[in-house]
């Protein structure tokens, strides 16, 4: 579920940018298809404008935005297994079209929002121990103690995790996984890989996924209590979490897919950027002045 989760978070992010083109309330905004017909729509960008700043390096804005220090290749994502990955991506998409998305549609349509929220709260609460450990290993003591506090509050007052009571008291959910922990200590993502069922990942994050599942205490808990249907229960947890997440992002992913011309390459870039962003969150060697960090109150609405 973690990997699906990541993909979906990334997807949401980009849909903010790519949002719903064509489904606007302004029906039928006709774009000129041919240059000849473009005149009524106003003058277009002239080539000369772009040619003229062909390009001195000190004038290169993007060079500052994405410094090519070798750490991050802005030309091409590292994907030596692209052929296999594309195959796996298509396989996952097929499963999605025929199974996951329809299930998510049914789930979203038939279950009341309260029930859907409970499913999410419950599966999130079960993830708390693993998140706690990863926060601890990354030295994020405050987040770790909040995660453990959330776990105890929600497991008790929140009726076994069905209600996110801690959130009402200002303790918000946050997520860390072992892939991020590895990245925190400097591990590069390595080649991009698409995992069956789990979706976009990298060698580093794939290892992280494996470690996280080993850290997960619930199989041992079920064992200790001699629960016979432990496999079914654990599978059910994954399915519930997956369907819930997919249901929350039906429109988002639809839009994202429709907006792209190479869906595979777009998802790959989104995934790698997002993971990098999550890991670099705390390293704050930003070239931007921090003095502007106070709210620019006069521009607020």
């Amino acid at each position: 579920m973690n990997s699906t989760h990541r993909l979906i978070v990334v997807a949401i992010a980009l849909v903010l940018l790519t949002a719903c083109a064509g489904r606007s309330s302004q029906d039928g905004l006709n774009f000129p298809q041919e240059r000849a017909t473009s005149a009524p729509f106003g003058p277009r960008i002239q080539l000369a404008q772009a040619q003229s700043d062909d390009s001195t390096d000190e004038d290169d804005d993007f060079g500052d935005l994405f410094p090519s220090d070798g750490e991050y290749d802005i030309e091409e994502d590292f994907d030596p297994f692209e052929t296999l990955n594309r195959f796996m991506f298509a396989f996952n998409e097929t499963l999605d079209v025929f199974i996951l998305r329809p299930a998510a549609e049914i789930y979203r349509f038939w279950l009341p929002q309260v029930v859907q929220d409970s499913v999410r709260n419950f599966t999130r609460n079960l993830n708390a121990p693993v998140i706690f450990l990863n926060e601890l290993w990354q030295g994020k003591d405050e987040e770790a103690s909040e995660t453990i506090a959330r776990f105890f509050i929600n497991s008790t007052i929140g009726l076994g995790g069905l209600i996110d009571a801690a959130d009402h008291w200002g303790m918000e959910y946050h997520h860390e996984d072992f892939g991020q922990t590895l990245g925190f200590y400097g591990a590069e993502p390595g080649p991009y890989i698409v995992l069956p069922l789990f979706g976009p990942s990298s060698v580093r994050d794939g290892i992280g996924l494996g470690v996280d599942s080993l850290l997960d205490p619930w199989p041992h808990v079920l064992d200790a209590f001699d629960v016979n249907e432990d496999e079914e229960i654990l599978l059910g947890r994954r399915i519930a979490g997956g369907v819930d997440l997919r249901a929350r992002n039906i429109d988002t992913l639809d839009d994202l897919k429709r907006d792209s011309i190479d869906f595979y390459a777009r998802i790959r870039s989104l995934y790698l950027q997002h993971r990098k962003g999550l890991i670099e969150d705390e390293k704050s060697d930003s070239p931007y002045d921090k003095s502007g960090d106070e709210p620019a109150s006069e521009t607020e609405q």
Partner: protein
Amino acid sequence: MNGVMPQPCRRPEWFVLIVLAGLLAVPASVAQAGPEDAGAFLDALNKTAIETLNDTAISEDQRLQEFRKLAQKSFDVPRISKFVLGINWRRATPAQREEFLDVFEDVNLQRFMPLFTKYADQVFTVTKVRQHKEKPRLYFVTSTISREEAPTATVEWRVAKRDDEYRILDVIAEGVSMALTLRKEYGSVVKNLGIDGLIAQLREKVKSEDRAANSTPQ
């Protein structure tokens, strides 16, 4: 009935154009100095865009035309195009560059227009403006976009100031850069289909979005 044409919307159009001209002047007039102005520029852009696109007094074509003008003024499309094509910009012929600029502009208009029209209850707030330490022309503006039903989203804008005018270079949400994502996606398409293939795909995309928009019932 003056015998020429029914012109019920003649006066509103005039009025709107005057108001619009005033609003378009806002970013330029506040472009003095100081990092807050990059935020004011985005605020003004947001307001103008919403007013332009939700203005029922002018025809759809006019709305689109005005929005295109506004976008050209506010986004540094030539620089973004060059970055997005990356190494392929240098490999492209002048004709291909021209074609790419042309279709890329349409793609972006289609992408950004719904942001301003889809959600009436959307509130855009600039929360932070930061200036680049070494290149003072570059700004990093943080904003939030909140709607009633959805969680508040944080969107960051990279803005450059040249000749007293601000222009957007990139939009970043959840650590994901639009320019970089498009560069990777387009790079992948060029690798498989060539530059002409990319341009053809983008043209097809613009066309199909248009059809979708036309066939979507209100």
